[in-house]
């Protein structure tokens, strides 16, 4: 199976869209290339189309042949595995069916497999080491073309924005065979297609540009060495234009908020672990600034957008440089494709775990809108009047919505946290940085009363542990909604609960459930189901396995004071055969 040519890439995307209509949307990029080619982007997703997005680019540099093939293979794998209910294995890396479904049900993946098809065509048919696009610049030979990855609107004018001796990797000479930046920022149709994706898909929060070859995994920034203590030293500040980009100097470092650096570093490390598991090649993680700064690159542009205009979503930018050469033998290319696929699945799992819908719909007879991107300071509600009509309110919740709800890793949890019969909205953060659980208590007429009760260990340490899922219920039967944490990766032996005290505060317990959590909950394919399974008025937690291997349904029954009684009742055919049939979904209720 040889390398894909540019026609095959487009046909492959179209055929995947046709074969998996419920899981995909084929989008047409608005700008045709200089040679008249039209590109498509394939959206993969089984859940809410407005849920968080991961944009994955390939083929920006023409001579890097493996990335577009890797993105087609990755897309085909995810779609087939989801459709048939399997997991995915790449060498020594393995992902469960539950991983696959969690990705496709929690996030949308946007595959832009070949950003620069004109260049790829020229590289594959004529000059193999061609890198740029095929813009006519008025000359022939190496005087054609623009480096797309120096054409984005991030410090694009490298002559004005960097220290003269920084050695910035860009050129204003159209005859530069590799790094000509183009006549203006965003001048190229290929660049504008990527910008169009970011402009028109505001739920995109992750941007991965797949290149080759070093190999290495890169995160922000590429303009200067990172620092997190001098917030005025940013790409936006022209006062530093004369000194930006020098290595190992003290005059300027590119500011990155410490929590953003933590997030991109840990996501990169997770990708690296997955890549390394395939065949032991340790790509390593580095900041995109290496020996020299870079201007106009896509990863920096994606991350910079929010800082240049806070009304835009924050998008974390990454680049993977895969494999060890631009054009390996196809046999070697297949191994690199497996590494890229494993790394991308790890990134998508990270995105899925941190996923927030841009607008979440709170269940009940009324509908509230909670925005999780910047720009709002209210919670609109449509109150059902019972005859098909709606009464609309738009009550203020400035800090709750304007600042807190759009923090990365925040999940919306609804319930009646004060027992007054009205639904309230809580925010549970699953990334480090918080030590409390804010609540917006509904006042019954569209207004909101905000609290921010402390839960230091529960939120500060436990809720942001990888693999932790949030489960709500009334675990002590007092009529107030409580929040429990069930970990589905190894390492815990208990179920922490934050019991609502009715006035915005929380009482924390951490009752033991050693086998239930330590062994059973982290089995691949296990789903968590809550309900009052013993009819005592307290919410219990059950585990239903949807992959083969079990014949029972374990339950942790709440004892009302934070403790758990464990049972493991047989359900041989129900679990052993039926629950793991592809396409089966759980729906619990009172059926008798």
């Amino acid at each position, binding site marked *: 199976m040889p390398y894909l040519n540019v026609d095959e890439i487009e046909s492959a995307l179209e055929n995947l869209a046709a074969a998996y209509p419920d899981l995909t949307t084929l989008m047409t990029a608005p700008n045709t290339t200089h040679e008249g080619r039209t590109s498509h982007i394939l959206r993969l997703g089984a859940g809410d189309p407005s849920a968080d997005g991961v944009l994955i680019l390939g083929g920006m540099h023409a001579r890097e042949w493996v990335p577009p093939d890797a993105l087609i293979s990755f897309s085909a794998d995810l779609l087939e595995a989801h459709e048939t209910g399997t997991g995915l294995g790449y060498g020594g890396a393995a992902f469960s069916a539950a991983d696959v479904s969690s990705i496709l049900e929690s996030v949308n993946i946007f595959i832009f497999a070949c950003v620069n098809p004109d260049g790829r065509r020229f590289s594959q048919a004529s000059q193999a080491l061609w890198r740029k696009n095929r813009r006519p610049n008025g000359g022939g030979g190496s005087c054609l073309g623009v480096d797309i990855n120096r054409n984005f609107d991030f410090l694009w004018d490298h002559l004005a924005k960097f220290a003269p001796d920084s050695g910035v*990797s860009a050129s204003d000479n159209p005859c530069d065979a590799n790094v000509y930046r183009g006549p203006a920022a965003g001048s190229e149709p290929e660049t504008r297609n990527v910008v169009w994706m970011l402009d028109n898909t505001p739920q995109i929060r992750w941007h991965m540009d797949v290149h080759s070859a070093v190999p290495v995994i890169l995160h922000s920034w590429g303009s200067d060495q990172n620092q997190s203590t001098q917030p005025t030293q940013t790409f936006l500040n022209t006062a530093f234009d004369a000194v930006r980009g020098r290595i190992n100097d003290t005059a300027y470092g590119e500011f990155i908020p410490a929590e953003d650096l933590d997030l991109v570093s840990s996501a990169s490390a997770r990708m690296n672990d997955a890549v390394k598991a395939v065949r032991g090649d340790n790509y390593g993680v580095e900041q995109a600034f290496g020996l020299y700064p870079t201007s106009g690159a896509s990863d920096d542009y994606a991350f910079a957008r929010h800082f240049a205009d806070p009304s835009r979503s924050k998008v974390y930018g990454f680049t993977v440089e895969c494999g060890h050469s631009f054009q390996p033998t196809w046999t070697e290319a297949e191994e690199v494709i497996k590494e890229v696929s494993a790394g991308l699945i790890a990134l998508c799992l990270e995105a899925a775990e941190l996923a927030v819908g841009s607008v979440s719909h709170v269940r009940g007879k009324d509908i509230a809108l909670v925005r999780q991107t910047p720009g709002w300071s209210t919670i609109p509600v449509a109150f059902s009047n019972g005859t098909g009509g709606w009464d609309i309110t738009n009550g203020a919740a400035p800090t709750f919505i304007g600042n807190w709800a759009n923090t990365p890793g925040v999940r919306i949890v609804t319930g009646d946290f004060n027992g007054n019969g009205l639904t309230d909205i809580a925010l549970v953060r699953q990334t480090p940085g918080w030590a409390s659980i804010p609540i917006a208590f509904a006042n019954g007429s569209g207004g909101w009363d905000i609290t921010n009760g402390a839960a230091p260990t529960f939120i500060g340490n436990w809720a942001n542990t990888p693999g932790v899922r949030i489960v709500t219920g009334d675990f002590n039967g007092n009529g107030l909604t409580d929040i429990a944490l069930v970990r589905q990766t190894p390492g815990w032996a208990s179920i922490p609960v934050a019991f609502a005290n009715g006035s915005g505060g929380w009482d924390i317990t951490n009752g033991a459930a050693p086998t239930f959590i330590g062994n059973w909950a982290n089995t691949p394919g296990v789903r968590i189901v809550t309900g009052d399974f013993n009819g005592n008025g307290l919410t219990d937690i059950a585990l239903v396995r949807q992959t083969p291997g079990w014949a029972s349904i374990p339950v942790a029954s709440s004892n009302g004071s934070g403790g758990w009684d464990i049972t493991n009742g047989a359900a041989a055919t129900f679990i052993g055969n039926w629950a793991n049939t592809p396409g089966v979904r759980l729906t619990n209720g009172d059926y008798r």
Partner: protein
Amino acid sequence: MSEDPIIHFEIRAATLAEIKEFTDEIQPDLGCRAIARRAEGGFVIDAYLPESRLQSSRDVRSAANVSLHVLENASEVGRARQQEVGSSNRYAARGEIPRGLGRKE
């Protein structure tokens, strides 16, 4: 072009500063981003130059502090790989569904 092929080579040195001094002087193509990796005995970075410039780069002042290792004749490799590119369209028929390289397990 065939008279002066592009050579893919490694630059190794004990320190990043020694690599940078050399790349400052010879200005090679360093690929997408100029990223050096830690390696045994120091650091290594991949670079690309026409064969004639690679030869002359061995004589520059800062070459004394680095070692150069040729990996491949990238132009020659590229011409060979062009034979491994799909020549028609294996997905021309709508029913030809791409399959990935992952084990479905």
